[in-house]
């Protein structure tokens, strides 16, 4: 600790620290970003005052209106229920109408909002017969058509009245295709595609009781030979167009179909209609190189009249990687002179929206892929002065003392150099004093790069200070499922760049791939195919001589090391490497030991097992390998010490099963991952998910929903060795024979739906832990650990018997408003929280993600190593200066007086 003390350059000021924020502190330490998600459909809508809005529905069950001039969100509605699916959106001059389908309860909801105020004008529910499935629904005139696409290839259309939700008629259309169809609607035609037989079926709208499909073979309408149809898409804003996306020679192209008066009129060669006119905009994308590997397409936009007459032409080159063009929306106007006025909103496969003017200028962009973050890590920049890590015991053999010393000196020289150059480059000296410090200098390690991998195949590096996108990498082939993100090398090692690796399955080739990149700059270091399909991947604790923490990639019976150069260090520690795997068939958990077989290959040998008869593992949470536990025990009221049972190999498992009555129950286990010893097992009956677990130090906390009492509950477990400690210096799971005391207590939570749970992390674990809890309503609570302490005494315990700092037990957790760290900045649909320690022991960085993003810092034990925010430097400095001057003057005066006295 002594070495760290030097880092705390500012003195503690504990006395006056406000728990809540002042109004001027909003966005001083935090930022938030509101998103809508990747759009599925959109429409332009002009306000009576002539402003243009862009109303859209998105993958994240959001209905929103954007200002089409600036791209700002004007209003946004998020469907509450996860099972609610937004199927159609229509704007009329006075209303925004939407149809949503509730998957579980089988009913359609028709809602209408005012387009500018977003006030709900109508809400009608139309229950359908139980067991019905609705795949597609759309509004046509005053009717809602709900389509069920059967496996046999037939389509059942239930037509309902928009106003009352009452059924009008049911029509079944048969196609004779043995496979389910893919259907869309254009304004007056329902078009279906059979992918396997390459046939197109259509029928005019409204669907009459005697309606039938008209069938057309795709090659008859001019689709190129050898093309494999993929999907059918609408052409937004057009009056009668649909397009077929097809694959030909590993490239996706699309073909346009034109319908007129309910009849197919032929095909053309991404096109969008121009709202308000009958013109269309043809977009042709071209890549900078033939393989399209840069994902920076250039777009040529041609405005066509009557499909042939070229009215306007412009081209636009994307300045960054965006993937390929997926969808476009256009709004046109004609001025007196007949020149083209239009606005174009482009959706690219990375989930970003770009708005263009007819001259090819970019009006605004939105990064909507950030609404669906899949994996996220906070990476330290390593720019703070004390960030060089000790090389640790693993390095002693590899590098000698002199080399290490030289390296340290070089590191400090580099820091001095960067500080000097930082001062030389400063144009405005006032910045230094006003706190607008340059990004490069971050003395306390608070600055992090948020490395976010999104479902859309885009990887972002965000600045945690203001949410600015530092870099992005487009990866359209990433699949969210079964991907792993690891930080293999941090920025703490001077002379080497940090390294993050992403293991994912390629969407097209189904092969597993490994992508390594520098999380600070976004530079791709390597991109390679993995030899075997990945069952599990795990980051090891120790690092090799290049400071890379190896990743073990486990396929069925094969263990590979990534990078392969780190194999030697894995073999060295194989004796002490234990891995728990889950059998996908039997649901058993097996403890495995890493072995090197005589051929030099790494293999796993099962050593223990945990059966889960009739249940399925839902959560499997170990402790963070980077965590420090500061204190070994707790002082009790009678001054004795209760020692913590700090087993770093402990994991908490929640497995879910169904009992005889068909109700869900969970089994909770605390298992030692080396020996498979069960430390604790408990069972909760009649509970359901979502389950969230925080496991740290000697305690664990988990939440679940109690179906019987209809409330969310939280159970807190804490493990103690007892009043004596068996071994204070090292812990060995193998020779561990302690049966720890398991303290437990359950609490009632106020909010009924918890969407994320996380503990705060600080560098040395001295600061008390807080639990961060995000609720579905978008609030993030910061709950002190003491509140969740299972040792909270009974209310009747006299005060002198109570342990200091632990409040008496009250079954319901009181969560006052001051505990909400995001004050009025509601985070839309939070899905996860991630925390990271900073160089300041008191402070922890928090990043909440979901539909919206929110990043802040928290100080669980208040800012004991920080000066107050409004600390008056000038007064202190001037008082100090005045005192020094006064002491000099009085010294001179007294000298003169002494001299005079001596002469007397």
């Amino acid at each position: 600790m002594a070495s760290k003390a030097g880092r705390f350059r500012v003195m503690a000021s504990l006395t006056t620290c406000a728990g809540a924020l002042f109004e001027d502190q909003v966005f001083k330490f935090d930022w938030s970003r509101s998103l809508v998600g990747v759009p599925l459909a959109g429409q332009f809508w002009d306000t009576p005052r002539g402003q243009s809005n862009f109303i859209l529905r998105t993958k994240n069950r959001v209905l929103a209106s954007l200002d089409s001039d600036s791209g700002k969100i004007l209003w946004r509605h998020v469907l509450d229920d996860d099972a609610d699916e937004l199927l159609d959106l229509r704007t009329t001059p006075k209303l925004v109408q939407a149809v949503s389908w509730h998957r579980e309860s089988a009913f359609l909801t028709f809602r209408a909002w005012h387009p500018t105020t977003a006030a709900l004008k109508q809400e009608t529910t139309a229950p359908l017969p139980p067991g019905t499935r609705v795949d597609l629904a759309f509004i046509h005139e005053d009717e809602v058509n709900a389509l069920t696409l059967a496996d046999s290839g037939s389509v059942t259309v239930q037509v309902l009245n928009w106003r009352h939700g009452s059924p009008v008629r049911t029509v079944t259309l048969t196609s004779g295709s043995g496979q389910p169809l893919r259907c869309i609607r254009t304004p007056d035609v329902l078009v279906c595609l059979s992918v396997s037989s390459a046939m197109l079926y259509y029928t005019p709208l409204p669907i009459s009781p005697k309606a039938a499909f008209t069938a057309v073979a795709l090659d008859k309408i001019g689709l190129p030979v050898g093309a494999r149809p993929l999907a059918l898409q609408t052409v937004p804003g057009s009056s009668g167009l649909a397009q077929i996306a097809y694959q030909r020679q590993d490239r996706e192209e699309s073909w346009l179909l034109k319908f007129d008066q309910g009849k197919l009129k032929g095909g053309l060669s991404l096109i969008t209609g121009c709202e308000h006119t009958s013109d269309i905009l043809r977009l042709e994308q071209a890549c900078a190189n033939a393989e399209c590997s840069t994902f920076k397409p250039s777009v040529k936009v041609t405005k066509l009249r009557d499909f042939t007459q070229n009215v306007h032409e412009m081209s636009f080159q994307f300045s960054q990687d965006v993937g390929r063009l997926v969808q476009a929306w256009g709004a046109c106007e004609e001025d007196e002179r007949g020149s083209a006025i239009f606005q174009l909103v482009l959706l690219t496969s990375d989930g970003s929206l770009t708005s263009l003017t007819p001259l090819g200028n970019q009006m605004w962009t939105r990064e909507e892929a950030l609404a669906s973050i899949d994996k996220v890590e906070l990476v330290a920049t390593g720019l703070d002065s004390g960030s060089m890590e000790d090389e640790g015991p693993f390095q002693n053999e590899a590098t000698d003392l002199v080399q290490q010393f030289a390296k340290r000196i070089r590191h400090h020289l580099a820091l001095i150099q960067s500080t000097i150059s930082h001062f030389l480059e400063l144009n405005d000296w006032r910045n230094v004093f006003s706190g607008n410090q340059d990004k490069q200098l971050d003395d306390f390690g608070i600055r992090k790069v948020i490395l976010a991998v999104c479902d859309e195949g885009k990887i972002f590096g965000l600045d945690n200070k203001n949410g600015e996108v530092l870099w992005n990498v487009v990866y359209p082939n990433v699949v969210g499922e079964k991907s792993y993100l690891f930080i293999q090398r941090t920025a703490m090692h001077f002379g080497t760049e940090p390294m993050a690796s992403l293991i994912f399955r390629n969407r097209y080739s189904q092969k597993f791939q490994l992508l390594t990149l520098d999380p600070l700059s976004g530079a791709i270091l390597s991109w390679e195919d993995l030899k075997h399909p990945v069952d599990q991947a795990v980051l090891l604790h120790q690092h090799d001589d290049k400071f890379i923490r190896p990743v073990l990639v486990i396929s069925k019976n094969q263990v590979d090391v990534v990078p392969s150069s780190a194999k030697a260090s894995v073999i060295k520690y194989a004796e002490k490497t234990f891995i728990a795997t889950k059998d996908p068939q039997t649901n058993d958990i097996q403890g495995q030991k890493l072995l090197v077989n005589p051929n030099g290959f790494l293999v796993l040998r099962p050593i223990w097992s945990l059966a889960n008869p009739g249940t399925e593992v839902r959560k499997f949470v170990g402790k963070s390998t980077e965590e420090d536990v500061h204190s070994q025990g707790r002082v009790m009221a009678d001054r004795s010490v209760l020692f913590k049972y700090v087993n770093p190999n402990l994991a908490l498992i929640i497995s879910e099963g169904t009992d005889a009555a068909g109700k869900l129950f969970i089994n909770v286990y605390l298992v030692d991952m080396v020996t498979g010893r069960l430390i604790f097992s408990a069972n909760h009956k009649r509970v359901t998910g979502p389950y969230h677990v925080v496991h740290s130090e000697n305690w664990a906390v988990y939440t679940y929903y109690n179906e019987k009492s209809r409330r969310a509950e939280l159970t807190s477990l804490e493990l103690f060795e007892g009043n004596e400690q068996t071994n204070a210096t090292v812990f060995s799971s193998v020779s561990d024979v302690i049966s720890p005391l398991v303290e437990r207590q359950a609490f009632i939570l106020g909010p009924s739906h918890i969407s994320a749970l996380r503990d705060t992390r600080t560098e040395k674990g001295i600061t008390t832990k807080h639990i961060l809890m995000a609720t579905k309503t978008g609030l993030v609570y910061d709950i002190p650990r003491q509140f969740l302490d299972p040792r909270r005494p009974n209310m009747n315990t006299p005060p002198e018997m109570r342990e200091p700092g632990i409040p008496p037990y009250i079954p319901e957790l009181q969560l006052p408003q001051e505990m909400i760290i995001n004050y009025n900045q509601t985070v839309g649909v939070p899905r996860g929280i991630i925390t990271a320690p900073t160089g300041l022991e008191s402070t922890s960085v928090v990043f909440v993600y979901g539909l919206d993003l929110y990043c802040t810092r928290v100080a669980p034990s208040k800012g004991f190593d920080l000066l107050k925010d409004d600390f008056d430097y000038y007064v202190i400095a001037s008082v100090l200066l005045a005192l020094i001057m006064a002491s000099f003057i009085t010294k001179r005066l007294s000298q003169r007086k002494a001299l005079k006295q001596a002469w007397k």
Partner: protein
Amino acid sequence: MLLIMWPVFLFLSILTPPIWADFEDTPSTDGQFNLEVEHSLDAGQSFQDRGLLTVHSIRSKSFSSDPTDLTSEQKAQLKTLCDQGDLYLLRIKATNPATSQSSLHRSVADPCLMIANAFQDTFTLHLDWKSQLVSLSVMPTPTPGQASLGSLRDHFQTKVAVQLMEAGPQPDTSAFIQKVEQEKLAQQRGETKDNRSFLAKYWMYIVPVVLMLAMSSANPEGQGGGR
């Protein structure tokens, strides 16, 4: 989603005298298990028969054991395992005679602790709330005195313990409601007793009096000093 695994590092430390607490809960359901025990003396390359354990009843904790004798060679192998820092692995086939369902379980123990405790060990059966076998853990039974390899008995002396799954904690609302109601009743009766100390109760009267006294005694002195 939950294919999580866990790298674990163990640090072999100095052996400490083991503490073993016997099981606390009495089983609510009866059950029978036949355990065919096999052990490996070469760190998992091969398994050898170690004997049979029969748990007649979980409720009455009755069990019988039929261990296979160890050869001196096997004892020496166990000693080698301990010296090399390897693990003593066990493979147990558990059969429930009532349902004739069997399951294979694996467990691990420290060979050094086995030797130190003269081949006396305890098998703990962890059952879930439906009395299904979840896992088996093998721990040495603590014995006083250090055993040497020569004085070891010829077979394992095994005890069986059963650990049942506990019911998870529930929020304790009844005590809280009771307490609140009691307070309400007491308030209605006006029985709220003030048990604060004398000073705590009347400090607002005492402080001004003390202050007045202090001021009146200090003032004349100051005036006197002035003259």
